[in-house]
């Protein structure tokens, strides 16, 4: 297997930094990681990949991402007070594609959430579509979060996966 280890290292460092920002509520910095036209998607049915024409848990364009960050920061939502503490591990990173100025990679994310009296666990397969960027290294074009239990019943999630 011929692997571009340098690129793998670079994108891994990038998504680790992203994970750390989300766990530490550095949402403004997180918004800066995105391309203006980028979309953040949490699908329901993993078989339906025409996300725009199907129902998702989230289909956030730039406007919705900004609103979501405001919702998490402004303290108006009772589901964010008290706020959930999260720690996520990102691993099993694999470069799937590197062509036409877009890098596609897949990884595994295990996230633990603690809020009030409950410890919860969300496991997801995440696909990133990245472009190269002079200042941040990369920008996110697409982030697709396929929760392993996406077709099951979930409880309220008031943070960013």
């Amino acid at each position: 297997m011929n692997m571009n280890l340098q690129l793998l290292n670079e994108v891994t460092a990038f998504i680790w930094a992203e994970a750390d920002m989300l766990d530490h509520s550095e949402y403004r910095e997180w918004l800066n990681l995105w391309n203006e036209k980028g979309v953040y998607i949490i699908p329901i049915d993993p078989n339906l990949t025409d996300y725009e024409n199907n129902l998702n848990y989230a289909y956030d364009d730039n406007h919705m991402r900004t609103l979501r960050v405001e919702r998490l920061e402004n303290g108006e939502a009772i589901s964010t007070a008290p706020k959930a503490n999260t720690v996520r591990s990102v691993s099993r990173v694999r470069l799937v594609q590197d062509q036409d100025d877009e890098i596609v990679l897949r990884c595994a994310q295990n996230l633990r959430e603690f809020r009030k009296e409950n410890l919860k666990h969300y496991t997801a397969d995440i696909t990133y579509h990245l472009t190269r960027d002079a200042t941040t290294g990369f920008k996110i074009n697409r982030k697709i979060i396929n929760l392993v239990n996406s077709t099951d019943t979930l409880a309220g999630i008031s943070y960013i996966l």
Partner: protein
Amino acid sequence: MTQDIFKRTIDMNSIIPTHNIGIDYDALVQSDRAHTSLYKDERIFDEEMEKIFYSTWVWVAHASEIPEGGSYKTINIGKQPVVVVRDRKKKVHVLLNRCRHRAATVCEHKKGKTNSFVCPYHGWSYALDGSLRGVPSPESYGDCLDKSELPLVSLRVEEYNGMIFASFKEDIQPLEEFLGPAKKWIDLFMKQGAGYPIKVLGEHRFRFPGNWKIQLENTTDAYHFPLVHKSFLSSVDEKTEELFNFENQPGFVEDLGNGHSVMVMIPELVDLDEELMERPIQERFEDLAQALRDEGHEELEVRRIVRAVGGSGFNLNLFPNIACSMAFFRVLQPISVAETEIHHSVITMDGGPQIANQYRLRLHEHFQGPFGFGTPDDSEAWERVQHGANAGNDLWIMLNRGLPGEVKTEDGLKSDVSAETGMRAAYQQWKKMMTA
């Protein structure tokens, strides 16, 4: 008087097994309040399954979820799993999801299409109407197995305007009679197809740790909206925020009989076909309107579609488990006394403009579901109700808001938009069924 009733229950609890002792439901629901035990007594929950969910019409599907012969979905009625399936002659059957041999479910998929249901345990196979077609190696049964005696158990099914309901009871009133004045509200709700058939395209499913009646109440509760959904209101444009300011509009809640009620929050969005050309297009839909014009739609059509995309201005609460709620179906599924599952089904226009349906999908995602800007806050409030109900065993859930202003109407009783008239309607029906 009320305290004595509760003491009696407590005393009996501590002395002898209580499962054979009748609960005085008449005393637990009064005209302006319901007793806290309705949220947390397991015996009450078990009896609700029998006396409500297995004794009335329960919503199981919208016709668009099973469009063709062989299309099916699975759902629970109360705690019993059923399959809702359309046969080749297009007739809908609601079948208990239980093989007549040794009880295994015959279908574990949420939805799909099939020619038959085959039990995976010993291979008994059933036709779409539930009849038992084949049994592997039948010789061992000799003549002691009559296949005609062992079909999947089929429930009574009736449909109104695409809404499919089932019942375990053969002797209750027809569905249309049960719906009564709610029928005209169902008809109004379906106008959000904008002339296209309504199609359920998917759903958000989530659970919260609380009793099912907490959610039943919420669909007819405008009082909570400005507070619980402050964060949602902050995320929409000013005009939309104004539209969602129900207190400043002449809305109302009306008891429609049999536990059903309607809450009109935005009166100008009751009849979506009204004054299409006269009223301005909402600011948030101007881009959509222009896109539709660019696709070549006539102005009247543009306005009909745009109006429909925003949804209806009312919540129709149908006792016990379904609501036509502004722009989606809310399905309620009791799991246990302190856990409830909710489905929020998104509605689209079947064959309608793709861009308009995308707007509907995005609006649904904005508010609904575990990751929406609305549902997690509702869920948090309901969870707190269940948690708080652990305190004060002798206290009551107060349902007296809007009582002084309540007036009689042709269909029932009516009061202001934030009145608890709809909850009172539901609890009176609850009492009627539990004491029957």
